[in-house]
């Protein structure tokens, strides 16, 4: 098992190196950073000096290494647009995105698992079929359309919920939270649904398929033949086995929530890193874009690792070290 974990960690690091290369390439080849940083009035000497200062006269590999070194310390330089350290800007925006992702991820996970179990157990029931049909719509509607529809119904027509922004936030240390005020919570609802709906339907359909599969297994049949009650069969014998394969994919889904947040944040003008990224693209603010890319990939890779560990925790067959034979 230890060998496996080490291998996974090494793989993760490799992935980060590759993403780092892409981010670095953006710096290097999308526009000239020197052009970007010096205004119209510049002399050749200015350019040379800055080149040296930035290490742009060094060989590619050295530059890349230095970039990684800096990135690992959270140092992505100054934003072209705001002139402030990128890390500072990102940290400011991160709580908004993380809170949104957390709420919609939780909603997707709990809702998806609950609905998946329900539709599997009541396979031929009317309500299960209605949910399944509705979920098809949920999967096929694009995120921004869902967001706009929700805004139209709940903000424009009914006027119950705000259509943009984060509402009132409370500052706790370096963190800003919308959880503590009524307007903050209200503002979370529509974006969270928009962001989580797609993942929820995916998880639901996945849980349903897996659960139906598991319910056909011999050990379920054998449990029935021993007179184990349905409740235990569904929630003890079947659910655990259902969750093993579900966890991997679900974990990846939750990772992609943070990436998908770009669209939702744009629709709702949610002041998170996604919106920051979109604005950065408009202004070709390369340091911000690169930093965002690195941040997202670190999260992805981190979530992946955690998911793998969970896998071990749930499935005892993986916990033993295989000494003999293949795998």
């Amino acid at each position, binding site marked *: 098992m230890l060998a496996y974990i080490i291998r996974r960690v090494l793989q993760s690091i490799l992935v980060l190196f590759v993403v780092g290369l892409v981010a670095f390439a953006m710096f290097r080849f999308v526009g000239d950073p020197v052009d970007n940083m010096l205004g119209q009035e510049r002399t050749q000497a200015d350019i040379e000096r800055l080149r040296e200062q930035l290490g742009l006269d060094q060989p590619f590999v050295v530059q890349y290494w230095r970039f990684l070194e800096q990135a690992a310390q959270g140092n992505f330089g100054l934003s072209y647009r705001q002139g402030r350290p990128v890390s500072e800007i990102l940290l400011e925006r991160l709580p908004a995105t993380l809170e949104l992702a957390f709420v919609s991820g939780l909603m997707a996970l709990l809702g998806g698992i609950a609905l998946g179990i329900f539709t599997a157990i009541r396979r031929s029931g009317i309500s299960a079929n209605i949910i399944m049909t509705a979920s098809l719509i949920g999967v096929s509607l694009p995120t921004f359309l869902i967001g706009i529809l929700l805004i139209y119904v709940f903000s424009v027509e009914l006027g119950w919920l705000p259509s943009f922004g984060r509402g009132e936030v409370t500052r706790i240390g370096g963190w800003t939270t919308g959880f503590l005020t009524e307007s903050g919570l209200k503002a979370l609802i529509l974006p969270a649904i928009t962001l989580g709906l797609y993942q929820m339907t995916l998880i639901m359909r996945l849980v349903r398929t897996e659960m139906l599969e598991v319910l056909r297994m011999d050990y379920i049949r054998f449990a*029935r033949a021993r007179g184990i009650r349905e409740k235990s069969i569904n929630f003890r014998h079947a659910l655990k086995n259902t969750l093993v394969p579900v966890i991997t994919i679900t974990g990846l889904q939750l990772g992609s929530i943070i990436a998908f947040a770009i669209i939702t944040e744009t629709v709702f003008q949610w002041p998170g890193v996604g919106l920051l990224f979109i604005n950065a693209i408009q202004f070709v603010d390369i340091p911000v874009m690169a930093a965002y890319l690195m941040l997202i990939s670190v999260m992805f890779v981190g979530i992946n690792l955690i998911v793998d560990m969970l896998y071990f925790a749930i499935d005892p067959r993986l916990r033993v070290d295989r000494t003999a034979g293949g795998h």
Partner: protein
Amino acid sequence: MTEKTPVLSVRNLVVEIPTRHGILRPVDNVSYDIHAGEILGVVGESGAGKSMTGNAVVGLLDRPARITSGEILLSGQHIHTLKGEALRRLRGKMMGMIFQDPLTSLNPLLTVGDQLTETIQEHLKVGQTEARNRAIAALEEVGIPAARSRIDSYPHEFSGGMRQRVVIALALCAEPDLVIADEPTTALDVSVQAQIVALLKRLCREKGVAVMLVTHDMGVIAEAADRVAVMYAGRLAELGPVREVLTAAHHPYTAGLMASTPLASQGKERLRQIPGAMPRLGNLPDGCAFHPRCDYAQDRCRANPGPTLDTCDGRAACWFPLNTKQKDEVSA
């Protein structure tokens, strides 16, 4: 023995499956008894309806298959009319079931102890510690060494043969009167098959359990069964004491089965397959379902109604049973 109420009594059982091409009868008018401490072997080609019969008894038929007529009595009580919760309470407590593949019969994510104690506590009013002690005893009974230390192991930590022992312990832990073992040795190594059969036989005798032992293996039948039921195309072809059926089969199909299995008693005789294949359920011939493959078939065999145990000699569903010379002479 016959005066006592049998543990299991199946009377004219019919199982039907409605399909687009008509109604199939995977179990057609089957009757048999099993007494306490007795093993009834059930043999027949694949698709003969052996599993379907067993599943019907424990009420675990997969839809759309269903019992359409006949009776099933467990220690004299009708159980074919029971549904849902009432039937569930009987399963495990009154009747246990053992499946073919021990690798897939056990829940991989629950320890052996969890699965045992849950079953025990479902049916017997005992506390956690008592259930655990009983679980350990059940494992010891089926010959798991060091049961006390192995009870918290997961199924994958046992070998195939040991897993089938665990399955048997699970089927028997709530002390049922009837056990249906559906090909309990088919998926096992040849070397452990005999051990599992011997174990079933021992438990049957010691605990006085009635056992229905479904198998393809005539050797297993010869070794373990007291009586044997031969099924063909959903019907009983022959039913009788194992020694008599194996040494002097009345039904030509039984004789054919015997000739195609390498049994020690048959010595050096060459193996002979029965020509042709069992007809599909939707396409059964008139009269005796076996007649297209039967060497002894005559006109009467092709006419309806076909032979049944009741309308023939009570042992074989055949108008022209084999090996009955002596009887004929006696009765003549």
